[in-house]
């Protein structure tokens, strides 16, 4: 997941692996993702997005696009008088 984030962001978001698990556990507690576990000597947890998570993602995406668009419009607006 961290590798994918690093690749898609052209190495801008290069996180430590240890930061990922608290985030995943927090999202799981909020019901945004759910997990199932595979037993074995090295137990693995597989996460997937819930309907609540999909709705939260869509809302955050809308908020981000509005915010980023506003910043861009400010930056591209040319000179202004203070």
């Amino acid at each position, binding site marked *: 997941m961290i590798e994918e984030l690093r690749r898609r962001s052209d190495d801008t978001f290069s996180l*430590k*692996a*240890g*930061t990922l*698990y*608290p985030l995943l*556990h*927090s999202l799981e*507690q909020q019901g945004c993702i759910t997990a199932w576990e595979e037993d074995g000597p*090295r*137990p*693995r*947890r597989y996460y997937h997005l819930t309907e609540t998570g999909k709705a939260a993602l869509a809302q955050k995406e809308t908020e981000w696009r509005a915010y980023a668009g506003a910043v861009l419009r400010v930056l591209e607006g040319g000179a202004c008088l203070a």
Partner: protein
Amino acid sequence: MPERFNEYLDQAARSIRWRRARPFALRELRTHLLEQKDAFMEEGMSEPAAEEAALRDMGEAEAVGKALDGVHRPREQWLLLGLTVLLACAAVFLRFYLTAGFEFESPHPLRTVLALAGGLGAMAALYFLDYRVLMRHGEKIYIAAILLGLLTWRFGPHVNSAAWHTRHLVLLYPAVYGIWIGYLRGKGWKGIFLAIFGGIPLAVIACIAPYVTGLFLLLAVGSVLFLCAAGMDWFGVGRTAGFGMAAAAVIAAVIPIKGLIYAMGRRLEAALHPESDPLGYGYQAMSVRNMLSGAQWQGEAPVASVYGDYPYEYIVPEWNADFFLTTIACKLGWLFFFLAVGALLALFAFLLVRACRGRNAFGRLLAVSAVLSLLLQTVGAVIQNLGFVVVTVPIPLFSGNLVMILTLAQIGLALSVFRQQDLPETQEKPARRRWKLVLVAE
């Protein structure tokens, strides 16, 4: 597991204050470190270099531990605990206040205060307990509950031909059955049959006590738990097959209930028409209805004219125990009756909704077993205190010292589940303490 990884995980664990969450919180980190090390070695790194790189990629142990600590905290239930304590204290106060002047029928002050302290202690102990221990030791708890039932029945005091302590113990049997079902997780068809036949000894003890209310609570709550567990594929035989089998078992259990209802025909008839048997089965219901007919919105009700100069306390049997809600209505008025009933119903209904929404399947079963039993008791007690008497039902918190202790213990059990709902379902066995012998050569 390389020693460096162990040291890293130990350091991260020290930053997680809630010890119970440590094994779960760090399990993925352990797997991640091992897999990352293997990946680096496949890329051609030496083992020490691969370990070093895996640790570097993971980040600083203390920071990771602190971040996990922020997520894995117990969900304290201080408000619900506080409300329960308030309600228990109000119940004790009312029991003293409304029985003052009747020395032989008022609660014993020292015993009642000790019972309140004991009940609150039991609630606190169960609240802080890791309830998953109950699932691990389900077999022992189940056997202990049966043995205790038999011992109290054989050697305990009998009042009106009923084993006093056994009757109270039976009120905990729905929770014991919930623990028993929890213990049978993943045991397949054997688990389903053990769940069916495991209910029989508990029901038999309720019958020999004898305690019809306890038997009814066990059958009603037990059926709900069994159906829910089978519906969640708790036993691992598939949802449809498991639920079908559970439904068949519940339908089969209706046959003895029908027999019981038939045997209680006179009582049922008297509950609906107490005037048909005013000096027999209908006496209690008639006395309650007569007294309630004069109850005011606020203030004490006048004694019904049919009883002449007799005081209320001599007319309504069990006025200081299972008919205490009637006493509240007659002595203080309907307003206080509705306040007491509303507080009990609101508390147990809220706890039941929370219990059903739990994330942990065993926690759900356990909390529902405790709270549904209390809610059914309250509903039954309210109906009885309004003059529809079939069998006597204890009023949670109000009916006496033992009932208060049992009620508080069951609430503690449910709150313990809410407190630890973020923990995984199964508890990892606690690691044996590792002792190191260090020899220092001088």
